[in-house]
């Protein structure tokens, strides 16, 4: 199994505040990888570095064997930020079309991908509505559809399930599992421990460091815990 993302000894500080400290991770192709940790742990910073939007103070990140930042590699990454980041005066379809054209999809391909991703997130009937008329959940789903529009090999989702209802949450997770089956590498950040169970691998992040990583079962065994809240607490205590 090939490694699709390689994170090598990454450190980053904003001014005096150390946000990431010697982070080391290897993410294999076709796996669903969870970055779990409390708010402010440095998950978003790490994810942004993978996409190449931020530069580390030391260490390097390789995505698909190319060192980031790299514009070519961005074609293979679908990124969904914490905020929905949509153009609210445009319709759902116009949003999708715009991002599709940034990836230089041709007309036929664009049509195909738009209808495919829209049906994936259940927005086919709402595509011609303006985004400003969308509900919070619909915006989240459209945001996900945009991240998928160019059929990326790697999908990076920053807190995709924050602030949405349980039904949609399950919907999104089912979708992620399905995409994984297609062979996509998926990175999800979350601070909700019960979402950890669904990941293939988990890295627990706190104060800019990886506390521990492994498969969900491995971690539970290692820390003699029944739930992931316990895993997180025990791992934290051990560290201290």
């Amino acid at each position, binding site marked *: 199994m090939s490694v699709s993302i390689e994170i090598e000894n990454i450190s980053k500080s904003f001014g005096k505040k150390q946000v990431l400290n010697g982070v080391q991770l290897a993410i294999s192709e076709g796996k669903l990888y969870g970055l779990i940790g409390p708010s402010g742990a440095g998950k978003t910073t790490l994810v942004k570095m993978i996409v190449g939007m931020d530069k580390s103070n030391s260490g390097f990140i390789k995505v698909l064997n190319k060192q980031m930042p790299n514009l*070519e590699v961005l074609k293979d990454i679908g990124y969904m930020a914490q905020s929905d980041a949509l153009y609210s005066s445009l319709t759902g379809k116009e949003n999708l079309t715009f991002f599709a054209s940034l*990836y*230089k999809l041709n007309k036929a391909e664009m049509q195909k991908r738009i209808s495919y991703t829209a049906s994936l997130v259940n927005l086919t009937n709402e595509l011609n509505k303006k985004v400003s008329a969308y509900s919070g959940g619909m915006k989240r789903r459209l945001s996900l559809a945009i991240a998928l529009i160019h059929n990326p090999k790697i999908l990076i989702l920053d807190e995709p399930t924050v602030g949405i209802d349980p039904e949609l949450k399950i919907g999104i997770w089912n979708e992620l599992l399905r995409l994984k089956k297609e062979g996509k590498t998926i990175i999800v950040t979350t601070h909700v421990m019960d979402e950890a169970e669904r990941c293939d691998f988990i890295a627990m992040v706190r104060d800019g460091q990886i506390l521990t990583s492994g498969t969900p079962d491995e971690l539970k065994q290692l820390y003699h815990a029944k739930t992931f809240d316990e895993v997180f607490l025990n791992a934290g205590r051990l560290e201290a």
Partner: protein
Amino acid sequence: MRTTALVKRICLEMFRDKRTLALLFVAPLLILSLMYLLFNGDTVKPKVGVVNVEQGLIEKFEDAGFYISKYQELNDAKDTVVKEELDGLLQQDKANHFTLTLLNDDPSIAKQLQMKVNQILTTYTQTVFTNQVQQINLQKVNIETAYVYGSHDTVFFDVLSPILIGFFVFFFVFLISGIGLLKERTTGTLERLMSTPIRRGEIVSAYLIGFGMFAVIQTVIVVFYAINVLDIVLVGSLWNVILINLLLALVALSLGILLSTFAATEFQMVQFIPIAIIPQIFFSGILPLEGMAGWLQWVAKVMPLYYAADALKGVMYMGLGLGDITFDLAALVLFAFIFIILNIFALKRYRKL
């Protein structure tokens, strides 16, 4: 092609936002018309009270367009001026000695009134004098005035309007382009753009082209309206006026986008107006620059509006040709170039590549 997609999106968003469109296209016309009406209003006839002034002189005053009211002996001249709502009160104390009490609530009106009264008094006493001493033939002095620029019809608005046109183009383009990119920052879409393979230069050029198109339309509307509807003096070529304004719009665009980098909210963007826009008005030639301190004149030279106003005034009022304004145009191009380069660097905040 990515640039085209971005330009298309900017246009689409613009067309959906009717209010911003109105601000861009209608607001400048509204303000320009208002200024035109304000500056072209008729001069008000001054109200002057007279005490002990001979009838001949009063007639002269009335000829000059004064409202004259006569009063008997007064105790307190100032009090009378205030009570009777006069602009001035002229008292003849003895032969050839007058006292003029001015209201002076508006110094420019008072100065004008004083000048006119002086003038009339001088000519009147002269005529009286010549009538008395007929044998001495006093030659009447005649002054003919010739104008290098404009004519005796020239009003302040004629000189002001070229500057105003430039200012409106600058201000509205600055505001709308700045807020346009700012919206992209605050909603997070800029970040999302940066996660696609788009280049920073492509984003900057898309913004320049997208908003530039609206700036072009605005410029053309404002210029045509000012010249054809408001009948503002245009001695030089219309195309030169449009060229200057387009360059100015480009400067405003790139400056607006650049400053939006340093603003976190729309309100912070508006805070740049007193810092980046208002000083430019002072140095654009509305106030005479010659009287300013040397270092202040240098300040003017780093302001884009100074060059644009100079060129616009040159073309519209003085009728200069393209050759005479080359320096101003070059300065504007230089400003735009610097701002655009800075913009590409400023976007590094979002992606290092």
